């Protein structure tokens, strides 16, 4: 084997980061934001949505948590065009781009995991908080929105951010649809130039650096915002 070729890494840096990493990061942040919002809704449905809606939410969470992400990616890739056709009344399946399809997939998949985190967070709030809210004459929605959920997000922020780091790692799985995220870009360069070792090692190093730095940041943040009861 010829020596380690730094040139191929250097030459492909713009493609790797401006195309690949940008896709990965955009997908991560949008899916995390959407997932947290949707996950909070699902958690609230499970807690106070009544029997039917609660069962639907529970079923959704259990389904998403028992399936591999790769399978869910394939599901949504084939399913979304047909849902678009049904929703818009079109005559043929609606063409959705790769980004839209993967955004929908990751948002809906991670919403199940985020909902479990939020539900655990709500369960960790002392019951007296709800009672105090009701005693002050607030409705359930006002207590949840102004008293409980702000505390939940503060205590659960480290866990939510850790799950976001996991989501960032999971975005590499769009590889199965040949979508160009960071790993896909590295892989394309590797196969075009025949430099598998250099590109895959570089991709691993970058992922490690980003995730390690992020998890250290989360740990530091958690120490600073922790609520000491």
């Amino acid at each position: 084997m010829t020596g380690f070729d730094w040139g191929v890494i250097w030459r492909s840096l713009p493609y790797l980061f401006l195309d690949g990493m940008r896709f990965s990061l955009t997908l991560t942040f949008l899916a995390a934001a959407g997932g947290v919002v949707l996950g909070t809704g699902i958690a609230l449905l499970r807690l106070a949505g009544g029997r039917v809606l609660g069962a639907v939410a529970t079923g959704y969470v259990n389904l998403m948590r028992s399936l591999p992400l790769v399978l869910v990616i394939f599901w949504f890739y084939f399913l979304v065009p047909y849902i678009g056709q049904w929703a818009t009344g079109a005559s043929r399946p609606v063409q959705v781009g790769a980004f839209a399809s993967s955004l929908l997939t990751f948002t809906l998949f991670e919403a199940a995991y985020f909902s479990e985190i939020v539900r655990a967070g709500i369960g960790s709030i002392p019951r007296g908080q709800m009672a105090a809210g009701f005693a002050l004459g607030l409705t359930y929605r006002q207590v949840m929105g102004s008293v409980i959920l702000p505390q939940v997000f503060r205590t659960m922020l480290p866990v939510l951010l850790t799950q976001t780091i996991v989501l960032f790692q999971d975005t590499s799985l769009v590889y199965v649809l040949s979508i160009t995220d960071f790993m896909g870009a590295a892989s394309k360069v590797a196969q075009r130039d025949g430099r598998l070792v250099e590109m895959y090692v570089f991709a691993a190093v970058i992922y490690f650096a980003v995730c390690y730095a992020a998890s250290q940041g989360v740990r530091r943040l958690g120490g600073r915002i922790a609520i000491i009861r």
Partner: protein
Amino acid sequence: MTYNWNWRIFWEPSPEGIGTYWDMLLGGLVTTLEVSALAWIVALAMGCIMGVLRTVPSRLAQAVGAAWVELFRNIPLLVQLFLWYFVLPEVVPVALGDWMKSLQSAPFVISAVGIGCFMSARVAEQVRAGLGALPRGQRMAGTALGLTLPQTYRYVLLPMAFRIVLPPLTSEMISTVKNTSVALTIGLVELTARARAMQEFSFQVFEAFTAATVAYMVVNLAATLLMRWLERRVRVPGYVAA
């Protein structure tokens, strides 16, 4: 252009020539379970060692354990599998690399090792949490009785720690089964890969993926029930978690 449902597709012979589509999917499920079992054994073995190392009163041991966990936690599983499968044969001595590349069941073995190491980091964290949940007095009691450190771990600490972390370890085991699907990228023909192949051969997309979905849910359910039985068997009376 509507989708043509055909649930009888499972009884039709598959182009691969080994039987019906149902047989094809079943073969994939068997592969999934085999790789998961192997990977879980690797994960348990390495995870326990690394988790114990992180709690031992030795700076070097703790650094080794921490390095292992951080390395395998911060790199995505897909990238790790690519490193094992494509990069490792190139960086080891040529003879060993050639032998690796010529292995008939290379995807199988590499998936088991790769997924096992990935999950071992998470098992190590669980074991560390379990050992940390034990009162400090347990270790001191072991020393007071004249047990060496390994004996204290073997007879006093680890039995309780495992009983405490059995529920999280259950979900890690289910995660291992789900993570085998990532190995389709290095050529392991497991359940998701078979479902995808069925979809490509027969164009019956939703039938194929529904079958795979149901299979994963059944495996999930079976694993959960098995673990619940195990938890009941090893319960320690008086402990809330048990």
